[in-house]
């Protein structure tokens, strides 16, 4: 399945270079947690994931064609 993936800020380095890209997962579905694992992103570096414009949990199921954005940790404010 294909996912439109966006890796924000310092997480960009886990992608092909561009912040936004199409990513093919060799499965019919996977969870957000699995996707992060496949991308080799340390879970501790992730604060926040959105699917579409909604906040997602690590167990949110992806079935293809979603827009997924992965945010780094932030501090302060």
């Amino acid at each position: 399945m294909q996912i439109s993936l966006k890796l924000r800020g310092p997480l960009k380095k886990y992608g092909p270079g561009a912040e936004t890209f199409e990513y093919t997962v060799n499965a019919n579905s996977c969870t957000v947690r699995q996707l992060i694992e496949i991308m080799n992103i340390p879970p501790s570096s992730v604060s926040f994931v959105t699917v579409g414009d909604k906040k997602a949990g690590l167990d949110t199921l992806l079935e293809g064609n979603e827009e997924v954005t992965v945010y780094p940790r932030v501090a302060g404010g």
Partner: protein
Amino acid sequence: MAYTGNILRVNLSTGKAVKEKLNENWAKDYLGGKGLAIKYLYEELKPGLDPWSEDNKLILMTGPLTGTIAPNTGKLAVAAKSPATGTILDCSIGGHFAPELKYAGYDAVIIEGKAKVPVYLYLEDDQLELRSAAGLWGKGAHETEHSIAETLGDVVTLAIGQAGENLLPFACISSELYRQAGRGGIGAVMGSKNLKAISVRGTGGLKIPDIRKVSMALNKIKREDTMDEENMWAYTDGTPMIVELSQTTGILPTRNFQEGTFEGHENVDSEAVKGVLRAKKACFACPLACGNYVEKGKSRVEGPEYETLALCSSNCGIDDLEAVIEFNRLCDDYCLDTISAGNAVAFAMELTEKGIHDFGIRFGDIDKYLQMPWLISNREGIGAELAEGVSSMADKFGGKDFAMHVKKLEIPGYEPRGSWSMGLAYGTSDRGACHLRAWPAAVEAFGDLDPFTIEGKAELVKDMQDDNSVKFSAIFCDFWAISTGRMAEILSIFLEREVTAEELTTIGERVYNLARLFNEREGFTRKDDYLPRRIYDEKLTTGKTSGKNLPFEEYEKMLSEYYALRGWDEKGIITEAKKKALNL
């Protein structure tokens, strides 16, 4: 040598200055920065003092690591009794002032009294001059800084603009144009002393044993910890990234906190800011460089930061980035705190739209919006009313339930109905509604915790307040998510004694309680720890927070639980046992 051991005490009434020894016992108990500044104020200010009187004191306090190569330690605490709230007030400002003061040979400057005519201070090492500010009075902070630099060369300056001169309760202090000690009217304290600016040049240095070895060890820490992925959002994006997080979680204050999502968010988010980015900019000794120097059209600013985007963009219904950048620049120049200014403008917009009082300004009205910084700073037209802040506006015109403040300090950019822990953080912050005493939204609304429950929130807020208190006292920038263990490791090197994480946590708790004790002495109790009724009574209607409020009974329970954890009684008064335990 971590401390210089010297404090400069300047009395503007007499024009005399004395160099005195830093109180070493206090430095041990409170470290520096926030904690040590509050300790001096607690000991030296008479209870019930009128913050506008010349007996109020302005303290500039560095930290023990300031001026060294330890990363992210170059900020300055600026403290006084707040003219906005009547509480203790400490602000944190970046840039390069604090290390320069240290190189001049001082840990702190305490400014007392009031000059007869406008002056500015020029400090170079052991030489202090009170210079006439006659030609600078009435000018913005930007012109003031440029003009002083043309006279004095490479000094670093703290300056106030028209808002500080005109004694606005939300006047800030600017340095290097775009860095601010922002909240609670700290700039008005300078104004009330007829003090336009403070410029410093320090030519000395700081020595420590094994300096080469220490530098090498710190470079490793800088590379592996400070510049870890966890903190690099500051460099890649900076605080504008939070717009996306707040929008998604429904806590982006919109149209005076009537909603938690903003339809125009994409025009003012991090992507939009990056589109006009010209350069990244850091404070002294900071490898993270959160500053975004932007240019759009004729306007330029280092910013806008998240707080400005939330309060002056979505909260005013403005989705034009160029307008927000210009508003930001004007606020920095005249020295208006953008959090309070954005709130005041938004409150006037809602009062107008609701027909309660016609200020002639409505949500999204860019032309009128851009006139506001000048009118407010100079108390002209409707600016004369907005200049008093939302609490005073509500007293005069109504709308008390949606005058968004706690203890008369306007609320920052996180909607408490979608982050219940932020509600408690605002209610129990030592200087009124503030997001820097604790920022639990990070692990709650933006993290894994349920934002719509009070469970575990009291403890979360208390722990964060204690951690941040020691962080702002040792002076590490908020944007390095440093552990107390790491703080202890670095402090041990420079203080040349064993500092433990436990000791630091206790110092944090002591600092927070001393701030509370200061406020207690001024008559603050539980009754002052509440949020505006809107948060309890009105449900939001859009996005992830649709249908959500923070029910009053839930807030009450959370507050009581928090007091119990703190060792405070039901009225929020610190128990004798707690005072004793903390050596207060």
